[in-house]
């Protein structure tokens, strides 16, 4: 505590900086900073201005080590800066050293490692060296770097920028997407625009509701306002029902469990943001608490899990309205609740796909990770769970979230967005499916989040498998009902089975709740089908739907439906051949020297299709892969040999990632991927036709 005061008492601090770029002689500069207002970020900006640095650089400061010898220590954060300042003796200079990172200066190294310009405009200059020279990968990389450097600078980068980035959407542009009644027209182009450039902060409030699938299709401007008003009223009604119980002291186990967890977490979510800062009684913190508690209380199959506060917090910051934030949160969670299911299958799948993508695009790096036993990538758990929200500075996180959301095809609610999972209020307008099944006994044990008062739902998942016999019995009994609701059961039986187990547990949960909330059974039956249909949504997500992200020339093909090729064996040799032909990266794969394990294997293994990749969020996987691949040189040249070293490396990069650079490359790779998927599909279709002729 005293340290902080010491910082506040400091006036100007004189700084002496030495810049080294590894080749020329060092350059020195002197200036002063006010430690009370100079953050690490400000210091970085000052330094890049002072030395006119455009690329990446690292900062270190002169300090005494344990033996009292002066050594340069990395300065990576505000904490380091504080340490550097506090270590100064009065009137001494803060001695800094700036090291340029030559590889990354001025151009994007990874563009060159993956010189795959777009399939429709092959770049012979990039292909020939890799296919004809018997050089090692490294040599090749350097030689390509040299020959391509100027070209890249002159053409490639600006071309890439032009194709894969645009300025954020402005008010004028937004209005161009609305007709005279304020109805959203060209929704796919609208998403594409957000995907390429994000949104001006002031517009976020409006654009986020649209890309989070809050509205049914075709609402005019006034109708959207009315809709939000009606939904807000509905929200407050739902919220006040548990609040009433809360203040009357009618604390159920469930309510107590949830409020305890949520309270603890909202006090630790984005509190460095002005919006949530200050005392624990900050009304925005309370609003976040209300949003999360209401959601958990009305969605017993999801309840509350850590990570959700990180998803809800930006919504509240942008909407500045509790009810609106809740409505958006429901829109977001419709897709993302899968991440928080106790079986962990969604995340397991995402990890698996991330590894596949890395193996596909950079087999050398992938085998490096495998050889060093770091391919578990456990540090990516947070990236995948909260979709990179934590990895970027807050403002950047808002940007990356909207880009991710807009990368997904629209999924508007048929009538209106559901704010509850079960019949929290008896609205009585649902009908249809039959409420079957349910051994209520399974409820309490398999969903400890709603039943146990444990501070940690330690038995989630394990109990489900522990009661295997019982569960699988009821699952198989029930499965027919679900087959009718979801046409995708053939896809992945095992996943489905576990899924059914969960659904069954949910069903029993509702059974129990039905006794609390009378006459809601029809309602809950209908909603019971929803998780299932949400699941099948992923599987019927068609290529034509993601095509909107491709450059306009490709949008013309809109009648394609990837589900057509789902019946093809995935190990079919011909699609692989297509990948090799249409994906220039494969040319480089074949040039990797023979000692590098399994490039052929990895290039053979086909990437998951867009509707499978990332379990409903393919672009996220590309973003994560890009972040990893952009560090691959650093990782390999520093010989980071343990998972832990990698993890520490990426922990240090938290909130310091270069958003623009990551987005640019991820967009580019993703677009290429979609194109390839399209060509695969073309191929499959023509094969199917050939097959038909043969018969």
């Amino acid at each position, binding site marked *: 505590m005293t340290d902080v005061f010491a910082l506040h008492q400091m006036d100007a601090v004189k700084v002496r900086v030495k810049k080294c770029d590894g080749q020329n002689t060092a350059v020195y500069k002197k200036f002063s900073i006010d430690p009370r207002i100079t953050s690490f970020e400000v210091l970085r900006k000052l330094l890049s201005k002072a030395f006119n640095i455009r690329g990446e650089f690292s900062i270190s400061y002169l300090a005494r080590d344990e033996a009292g010898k002066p050594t340069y220590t990395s300065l990576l954060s505000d904490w380091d800066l504080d340490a550097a300042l506090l270590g100064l003796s009065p009137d001494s200079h803060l001695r800094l050293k700036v090291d340029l990172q030559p590889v990354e200066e001025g151009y994007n190294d990874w563009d060159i490692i993956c010189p795959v310009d777009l399939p429709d405009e092959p770049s012979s200059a990039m292909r020939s060296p890799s296919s004809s020279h018997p050089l090692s990968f490294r040599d090749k990389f350097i030689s390509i770097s040299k020959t391509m450097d100027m070209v890249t600078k002159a053409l490639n980068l600006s071309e890439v920028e032009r194709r894969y980035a645009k300025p954020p959407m402005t008010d004028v542009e937004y209005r161009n997407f609305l007709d005279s009644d304020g109805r959203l027209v060209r929704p796919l182009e609208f998403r594409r625009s957000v995907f390429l450039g994000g949104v001006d902060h002031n517009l976020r409030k409006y654009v986020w509701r649209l890309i989070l699938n809050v509205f049914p299709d075709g609402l005019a401007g006034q109708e959207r306002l009315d809709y939000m008003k009606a939904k807000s009223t509905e929200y407050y009604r739902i919220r006040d029902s548990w609040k009433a119980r809360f203040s009357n002291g009618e604390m159920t186990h469930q309510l107590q469990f949830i409020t305890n967890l949520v309270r603890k977490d909202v006090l630790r979510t984005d509190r460095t943001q002005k919006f949530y800062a200050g005392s624990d009684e900050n009304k925005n913190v309370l609003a976040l608490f209300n949003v999360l508690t209401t959601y958990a209380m009305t969605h017993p199959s999801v309840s509350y899990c850590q990570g959700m506060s990180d998803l809800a917090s930006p919504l509240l910051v942008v909407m500045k309205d509790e009810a609106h934030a809740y409505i958006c949160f429901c829109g977001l969670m419709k897709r993302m609740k899968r991440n928080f299911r106790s079986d962990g299958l969604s995340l397991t799948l995402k990890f698996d796909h991330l590894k596949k993508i890395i193996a596909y695009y950079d087999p050398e790096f992938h085998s490096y990770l495998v050889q060093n036993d770091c391919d578990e990538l456990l540090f990516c758990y947070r990236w995948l769970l909260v979709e990179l929200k*934590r990895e970027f500075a807050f403002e950047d996180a808002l940007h990356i979230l909207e880009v991710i959301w807009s990368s997904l095809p629209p999924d508007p609610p048929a009538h209106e967005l559901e704010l509850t999972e079960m019949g929290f209020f008896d609205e009585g307008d649902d009908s249809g499916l039959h409420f079957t099944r349910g051994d209520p006994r399974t409820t309490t044990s398999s969903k400890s989040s709603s039943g146990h008062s444990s501070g940690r739902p330690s038995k989630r998942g394990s109990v489900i498998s522990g009661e295997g016999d019982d569960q699988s019995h009821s699952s198989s009994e029930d499965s027919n009902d679900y087959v009718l609701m979801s046409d995708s059961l053939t896809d992945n039986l095992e996943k489905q089975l576990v899924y059914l187990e969960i659904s069954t547990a949910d069903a029993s949960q509702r059974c129990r709740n039905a006794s609390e909330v009378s006459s809601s059974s029809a309602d809950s039956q209908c909603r019971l089908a929803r998780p299932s249909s949400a699941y099948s949504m992923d599987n019927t997500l068609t290529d034509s739907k993601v095509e909107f992200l491709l450059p306009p020339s490709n949008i013309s093909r809109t009648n394609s439906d990837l589900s057509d090729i789902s019946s093809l064996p995935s190990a079919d040799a011909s699609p692989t051949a297509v990948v090799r032909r249409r994906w220039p990266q494969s040319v480089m794969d074949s040039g990797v020297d023979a000692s590098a394990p399994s490039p052929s294997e990895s290039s053979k293994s086909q990437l998951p299709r867009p509707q499978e990749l990332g379990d409903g969020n393919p672009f996220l996987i590309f973003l994560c892969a890009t972040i990893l691949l952009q560090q691959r040189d650093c990782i390999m040249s520093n010989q980071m040999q343990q998972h832990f070293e990698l993890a520490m490396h990426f922990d240090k990069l938290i909130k310091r990632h270069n958003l623009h650079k990551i987005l640019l490359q991820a967009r580019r790779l993703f677009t290429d991927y979609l194109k390839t998927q399209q060509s695969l599909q073309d191929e499959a279709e023509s094969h199917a036709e050939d097959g038909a002729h043969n018969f």
Partner: protein
Amino acid sequence: MSYAYLFKYIIIGDTGVGKSCLLLQFTDKRFQPVHDLTIGVEFGARMITIAGKQIKLQIWDTAGQESFRSITRSYYRGAAGALLVYDITRRDTFEHLTNWLEDARQHSSSNMVIMLIGNKCDLESRREVKREEGEAFAREHGMIFMEASAKTAQNVEEAFINTAKEIYDKIQEGVFDIQNEANGIKLGPEHAAPGVGGGVAGARGPGASSQAGGCC
């Protein structure tokens, strides 16, 4: 920097008991009252000295509310030491210790040294768990015990270092097979003999072989 041994630690315990704060106090010697909750796992490292030997600690700080079981098992894998933390001002966090302990024993090597920490001992007025209870629980389950405060730094250094001492003693007595990295111990460049597994390239001297001791 060279080191004789590398130990992997894992910090576990209920959400909000101060696991991340203990780690930060240990690695950075500061207390941060406002910080983001841990999702998944975070990491910290520090060098310490035991019996004149440099030992590098690799610390895995896990999330208290764990909803992804398959990944937890990965955290435990190869941990030589665990800090099991509860909050002396919250009885429930003490009551959940048995669950945590079961988990830890199930997923880790049987030799893993577990240190029980009653955190937030600066908040004496709000105490809900007596020190004697913590001591008794630790004794009963074969753990070392300390009350600590991440805020005042009381006993934080000691908790991490005493755990390392215990591991070091076990190595000396040949309880740990240090050639087996699954035990969470790795020989540093000072120790590793050429060709010995777990060593780091550029090993100098065969000092390790004498200590590589019996296998369990």
